[in-house]
């Protein structure tokens, strides 16, 4: 069965179907992370004492990760812009950089986790670490998910550009929207967990 409106906008929604789809998915993601942020606020305000994030976590590493993630948000959008200009080669380079940024983020996250584990700080240690591992872990899984899609778009999925460039461009756009959301979540996670 042919999927309709993969390139052209559907007249009644004004959007191509993939775009509406990703926004509905992101709406559900807002609720998922919203529930966790809500729990964090409740746990934190209800606790007698709550440690400052900077006392326990590595702020310089997390700052570096923030730069990496916002940088990758730019490269994915530059990839999309290049596709709209018909420059597939440049688009692939930008997509490749985005994928590498995702990898860099995960490596730094692994170093952070590794250091914590080596000092015997686990999710079961206390409420702070429980929240920290839960939220950064779920966020990390989202980064990993984005990387899988970028790898697909660079690898087997890249063939689509030759036959259906418009559709491929839209795929990069919706993946980008997801990636910006992952960036957005980190923008709030970083100060709340590390800086306060």
């Amino acid at each position, binding site marked *: 069965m042919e999927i309709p409106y993969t390139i052209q906008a559907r007249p009644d929604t004004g959007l191509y179907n993939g775009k509406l789809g990703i*926004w509905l998915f992101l*709406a559900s993601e*807002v*609720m998922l992370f919203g529930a966790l942020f809500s729990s964090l606020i409740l746990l934190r305000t209800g606790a007698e004492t709550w440690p400052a994030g900077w006392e326990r976590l590595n702020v310089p590493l997390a700052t570096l990760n923030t730069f990496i993630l916002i940088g990758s948000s*730019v490269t994915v959008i530059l990839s999309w812009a290049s596709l709209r200009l018909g420059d597939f080669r440049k688009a692939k380079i930008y997509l490749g950089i985005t994928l590498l940024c995702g990898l860099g983020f995960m490596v730094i996250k692994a170093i952070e986790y590794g250091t914590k584990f080596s000092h015997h700080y686990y999710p079961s240690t206390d409420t702070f670490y429980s929240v920290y591992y839960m939220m950064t872990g779920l966020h990390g899984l989202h980064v990993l998910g984005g990387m899988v899609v970028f790898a697909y778009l660079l690898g087997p999925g890249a063939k689509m550009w030759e036959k259906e460039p418009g559709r491929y461009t839209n795929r990069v756009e919706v993946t980008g929207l997801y990636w*910006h959301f992952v960036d*957005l979540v980190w*923008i709030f996670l970083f100060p709340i967990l590390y800086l*306060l």
Partner: protein
Amino acid sequence: MSGHSVEEIKRETRVYLTVFAALAALTVITVAVSYLHLSGWVAIALALAIASVKGFLVAGFFMHLLSEKKLVIAVLVLTVVFLLVLLWGPWHSAYDSIGG
């Protein structure tokens, strides 16, 4: 989408790079402020204010929400309403315990 002219896409690209510079600057500011170790509520308000500005930049420019179709905005407005209920509900109940 693909209907846009080359000039327009190049202009958009300059906007993206400007937004990136602003995000990087705000990240530096929020980290620098955190090293001042300001008192509780001031620190929280400042960190969340900066994060909100960064969030606005990402959502507004990178995700094109400033120029997005009405349906997407409607979906998100509805989501925000549910999100507020989600945030408010447990918070409210936490201060409404028997004997508390």
